[in-house]
Every structure is written in C-alpha cells, then in structure tokens.
C-alpha cells in the first residue's frame, strides 16, 4: 500500500484488507496450522532417519508406527467431534478397556469373529449412550459425567477379568494382525483408521451433523435459538465417541491378541492432546480431523524415535508435555495475527 494506513471510510468495512505478500496468501489458503503440523512431522521423520537410519525408516518400523497410531487415532476422531461441540470425554480409555474385555470373555468368544466385533461396538455405544443421556438430558457437566464413566467402566472391566489377561482364541481375529493380512504392505488396522478418518472428515465438514456439531460448540444458545435440537446433538456426539472407542477396542484386540482391563490407559489424555495440538478449540466451535490425525502421528512418531534411541518413557512424557505447550503457544500466536 502506498498509504500505509488510512482510517476506514465506510463504517461497514471496519477491518480493511491489507494485502499480504503473495507467499503468505498462498500459505493462508492452505491453512498455516495444518502446514506447520506437517512440517513438524517431516522434521521428526528427518530426526528419526538421522539418529537411527537403519531402524527408523525400515518398512516394518513404519508399519508398527502406523499400527500403534491407529488405535488411539480412531479414539481421537471421536474425541475431536466431542471437543468441537464444546464437550469433553474423559471416559474413552476406560470404555476401550471395558469393550475389549467384554468382547474377549469366554462366553463372547464362542460367537466367533462377529461376536467379538459386535460386542466391542455395542459396549462402546452403550457407554456413550449413558454419557450422552447424563449430559444432554440429565444436565450434567461433561467433565463430571465422563469422569464417573471412567471410574465405573474401569471398575467393571476389572470385575469382568479379575485382573487376568483374556487370550483371544478366535483365528479370524488373530489373522488380521498377521503379516499375511496386510494389503499392499498396509496393515488392516491402518486401513480401518484411514476409513474412520475419511468418514470423520466428511461428516464434520460436509454434513448437517458436522455443522450442527460446530454450531453447538461455537454458541449453544445461538444454536438453540436457531432451531437446532442441541440436546439430541449432544447425545449423538457421545454415542459417536463411544462407537469410536468400540472400534478402537476391536483394533486393540487384534493388535494384542487379548483383552485386558488395563487397556487404553490414559487414552483420554493422548486423544485430547492430539486434538488440541491439531487445532481443535478446547472451548468448542472449531474442529479439524486432519489436525487431530497429524497430532496422533506426531505423538506416535516421537514415542517410536525415543524408543529406538533407548530413551525411557519418563523422558517421552516430559517431551510430550513440552510439545503440547509449544503447540498451543504457537497456535495462539498464529490465531492472533491471522
């Protein structure tokens, strides 16, 4: 601009558009946040490749990273919807545990593959239903309702297993974890994760369900006065999160060949952290599936690199905490300038 600043002439045009340099407009179109996450992931891959060139870039290792990301990734997709709506689901880890042990009891395993899959999903949706009813129609705060679910689902999982690991004997389930089941080198778990991600992205960005989720999270009162059934939407969202937990539990059963009451420990923290790093607002009203998935991949890759470099899990935890803080600080900066 030749005249650096001139007062807005028209009162309706209060934020005059100061043209950005060309490279910045290009970046702005492509979403700075997502690009920076891709940049971080790329940097991690370079670090991994430099520190452990033989192990990290090995196909098997990459398959392992993606497989590990799949379980928490599916949970994170559900969590992203809940957070976008202004809610929170602290019970996801406990629901994964309960679904995984309920689906691997001796009685369930008699029904074979379908029995395990069906039970895991039903238990997940059932827990989500309880959460949703308590929050949407019981007027409970999501934090409290899902905290209660966390405690009771874990307790129930312990009661079912009595602390024992339940080995899966159904071949159809175990086979999915074998290398023979890989499709063009891609493990089936990763395919499920990819499908859940794509469906999640479409639902959030292209459907009325997604719009209502964003509206409820952005301004629940405005959504209500605009004629949206806010309570029903909230119920559906916790059902969706529960369903994702059920799917994740099934993936975990395939991965470990067993069901344990300690499964899914601290998944709630990992899922929330991944969603927040990805750019979903904890206060609701804005959510990004792409960002969440990148967040999950970043976390899983860090864990993998640390493990390959023989660093203990305590160091990993500290690094994760630092990354969460750094990501949120960077986002606040970009949010205030754009």
């Amino acid at each position, binding site marked *: 601009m030749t005249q650096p*600043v001139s007062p807005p002439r*028209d009162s309706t045009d209060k934020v005059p558009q100061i043209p950005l340099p060309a490279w910045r407009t290009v970046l702005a179109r492509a979403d700075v946040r997502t690009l920076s996450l891709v940049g971080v992931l790329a940097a991690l891959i370079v670090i991994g490749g430099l520190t452990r060139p033989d192990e990290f870039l090995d196909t098997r290792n990459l398959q392992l990273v993606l497989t590990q990301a799949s379980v928490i990734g599916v949970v994170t997709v559900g969590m992203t919807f809940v957070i976008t709506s202004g809610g929170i689901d602290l019970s996801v880890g406990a629901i994964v545990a309960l679904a995984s042990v309920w689906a691997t009891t001796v009685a369930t395993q008699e029904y074979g593959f379908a029995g395990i899959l069906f039970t895991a999903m039903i238990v997940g949706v059932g827990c989500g239903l309880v959460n949703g009813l308590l929050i949407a129609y019981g007027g409970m705060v999501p934090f409290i309702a899902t905290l209660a679910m966390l405690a009771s689902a874990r307790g129930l999982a312990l009661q079912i297993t009595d602390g024992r690991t339940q080995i899966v004997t159904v071949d159809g389930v175990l086979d999915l974890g074998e290398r023979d089941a890989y499709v063009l080198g891609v493990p089936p778990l990763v395919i499920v994760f990819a499908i859940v991600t794509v469906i999640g992205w479409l639902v959030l960005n292209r459907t009325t*369900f997604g719009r209502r989720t964003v509206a409820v999270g952005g301004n629940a009162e405005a*959504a209500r006065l605009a004629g949206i059934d806010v309570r029903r939407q909230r119920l559906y969202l916790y059902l969706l999160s529960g369903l994702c937990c059920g799917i994740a539990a099934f993936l975990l059963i395939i991965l470990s060949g067993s069901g344990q009451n300690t499964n899914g420990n601290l998944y709630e923290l990992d899922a929330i952290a991944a969603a927040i790093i990805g750019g979903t607002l904890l206060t609701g009203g804005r959510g990004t599936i792409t960002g969440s998935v990148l967040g999950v991949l970043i976390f899983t890759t860090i864990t993998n690199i640390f493990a390959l470099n023989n660093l203990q899990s305590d160091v990993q935890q500290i690094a994760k905490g630092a990354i969460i803080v750094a990501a949120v600080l960077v986002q606040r900066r970009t949010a205030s300038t754009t």
Partner: protein
Amino acid sequence: MATEPPLLSMSGITKSFPGVRALDGVDLAVQAGEVHCLLGQNGAGKSTLIKVLAGAHQPDDGVIRWQGDPVTLRSPIAAMRLGIATIYQELDLVEHLSVAENVHLGHEPTVAGFVVRGRAARASTGALLRRLGHAEIEPARLVGELSAAQQQIVSMARALSHDVRLIVMDEPSAALDPDEVDNLFRIVGDLTADGVAVVYISHRLEEIRRIGDRVTVLKDGRAVAGGLPAKATPTREVVALMTGRNVEYVFPARPSDGAAAPGGAGGTGAGDAGDAVGPPVLEVRGLARDGEFAPLDLSVRPGEIVGLAGLVGSGRSEILETIYGARKPTAGEVLVEGRALRPGSVRAAVRAGLGLAPEERKAQALLMLESVTRNVSVSSMSRFSRGGWIDRRAERGAARAATRELSLRPDNPSVPVRTLSGGNQQKAVLARWLLRGCRVLLLDEPTRGVDVGARAELYAVVRRLADEGLAVLLVSSEVPEVLGLADRVLVLREGRVVHTAPARELDEHRVLDLVMEGSPAS
C-alpha cells in the same frame, strides 16, 4: 475550576491493531471537576481510547500528561495508582463473591499478608454505598444476586474505594431506568463537586446536555472536535460531526400513512394499517409467565409491524422469548395461522415460521467463529442437504441471495461474521430468517450496537420485509424507534399492557407517561 495545567491531557495518541488504525492522533484534555463527554459512533475509537487511559492498551505513539507531568500507563494498576478508575460497559465483577469482596478486590485490607475478612471491609463498603445513595445493597450479598443497576453501583463503589481523581464511565446509563439514571447523575454531580473529573461516554445526546460540561467527538479514530460546550452546541452539529452528515433518525413511510383509525383496547386492535389485511398470522392468547409478565393477548397480521414499548424490566424481552418457545409459559398459548404451538419449544416455533433476532446478538444469535454463509444457513440446512449431505454450492448461492437482498456489506458471505459491523451482523441474522422463509419476525432491540447511520437502513429493511408480507413484532427500549417503525404499539408497564394504540396517535411523552404512570393520560 479550570486551572492550568489540565488534570489529564492526552495528545497525539495513536494505536493500531492488525489491519486497523483504531486511534489516529487523538487529543483529549480533561479538567478537574468537569464532566467531559466522549461521543462517537461504534468503531470511532472510544473504547480503545478509554482502554489506553485505563492502562489496558499501550499507545503506539503520543503523550499522556497527568497534572502536567508526562506519565506512562503501563498497566491497569499504574493507572489506578494515579487515581484513574474505569467503569466498563461490560461490568467486570466476580459474581460469586460478595459486594464487599468485589469492592476491595485487588486491594484487600490485609494483616501480615492474610486477607482480613468481615467487618472492616463490610463497614467501609457500606459507607461507600450510602454515599452513592444505595444503602439498601447489603455488602455481604453475592454480586450475582443483584440487578444490573445495583451491580453498576457496586462497580462505582469499587472505583471510589481508591483515591480516585478521574472516573471513566462507559455508557453507564445503558442498563438503567430513568429514576436510576437520575441517581447516577446525582452521583456524578457529587463527584465533580469534590473535584473529581468524569469522562462520560454515552450515545444519548439528551444525557450529555443534562450533565456534560464539554464534549469531544471521535470519528474514525480522530478527534473531530475537542472541548465543545456540551449544553450550547446544537444537536444537529454534534450529529453532523459524528456521522459526517445531518441525519438523526430516518424512518421509512408506512404504507398506511394517510389512513387513520382508532386502536383496539385488547390488543387485537381494529384494522388501521392499510396493507395489513386478512387474519392474523401470529396470535397470542393469555400468555403469561409467573413473576415476569401478566396474561397477554396480541395479534400480528401479515404486513404489520407491532411494537412493544416499555422500560427495562417491563417484561419485553421475556415476552418475545416466551412466544418463541425459548421460555416455557405458565399459562396461555401461541398460535401461528390458527394452530397452537407446542409450548416451550423453539423448534416448534421455528418450524411454524417464527424467527427471532435476539437482543444479545453475539451471545444468542451468531456463531462468531463462522462465516456469514454458515450463520445465515444454520436454520435452513435441510434445504441444502440430502441425507444429511450438504450441497455447499447451493448453500453459498442461497446465502448470497439472502444477504444481497438486505444489501449486507461487504458483499462477500464467506468473510467471518465477527468482522462485520453491528448493523451488518444484524442483517446476517435477518438473512437467516429470510432464507428460512419465516412468516413472523420477532425483533428484540434490533438496533442495539448499531451505528446511527446504519439504523435508518435497518429500519428500511424491516419495513420492506413487512411490506412483502412478513408479520413483525418489535421490542425496543428506544421509544422513538417503536413509534417510528411500528404500525401499532402496545405499551407495557411491569409486565402488563397498559395501552394499545396506532403508533401515529402516540408521541414520546405520552408513551413515557404511560410507561411510568400506567394510566392512559389524555
């Protein structure tokens, strides 16, 4: 009083935010003991200027002098130490603390680092409240339990609990009724008599005439006039300075102007609006909510604008929200085209063709993070979707058509709604209901936070929508707005309709009499 140098002088104050220059070399000089009024439209820079004065914003350039000495107001605490107190429009009180705790917040009396609770703080708070003429406010009560007017008094008591030399009041009368405004003015008078300077911000010119000494007018981040005599400057000149043109309120012509008929007594008045023909589209029968408003009857026909006039607390907004189903009535029913709505259901009301433009636009209507398109389409999503799948091109096209029809600016519905001015945000809300194809529009304070210049345009839009067959029910605390825009007016007092008449048979004084006396003066 005017000794040299002035208590406060600000010169060449400049402040930019990304993309906007909010202040562009503003000068302001305030003498001890005067009421200095700050006038300007929304976005003129008033808020930014008082935030600079309060130490909440740091100016990019310019000098602030306090009693002649240059000072830097690095933080709100620094400003407070000098004796500058600010009472913001959005009251900054902690609802879950008591009155006394709020008043002493940040400078609690302490002994060895521990906050002293109880008697001393309550006693000094009580003394302050008595000085403000509100001895009835209990220092031990929770602030959340007080009315808006009482909270304002607490906010003022907090300002006075410091050794204050200058008080900034940002639209203090906005939430007050006339008698409370009188009390406010008495307090302002007491303060100035003690030599305290008051910087007073208000949209209401008549208030500025009553209490102001001098006026500074801001426009587009510049002081276009400084230190005008508040009582002697003609209104026309002040308005011209604020807007850059010579209009105050311009109302569109009624289609019925020229005809005249007496108003009905019960609310279902005789036909007086020329274009409002046929059976009423909205009928309210005996609708009531305990403690808020008494059983109410009213009807609105297509093409008619019915106004509800009344003071704050007369139940206006509650009535609209109950009709809309956002509150559950304790008695009565709402009929749209003869069919009763399920009580207390917004969805039923929306489905039947009602639309509400609520009073608190940002809190109750807009999705501030979203684009104009999504704000407009949110109530009509089923029209652009099949099996839940949104046809985004159809959505954009429909939103664009609706916003164009209301000439919403900028003409680009993909911009975020938060970047729009107040008037255009209101148009976005109206576009939402236009797109939905609603038949009854409920407007609650439609021009709150809207520039003087943009109001006329909004009035014209509402009138045009009515002419096209919409039924409009309007609520406003600004009597001229109700009288100028509505065809028929219901005057409310304490939740009761005290008078119904065609708007052109009423004038502002008559309505104010009714509102305060409750009996139809003749």
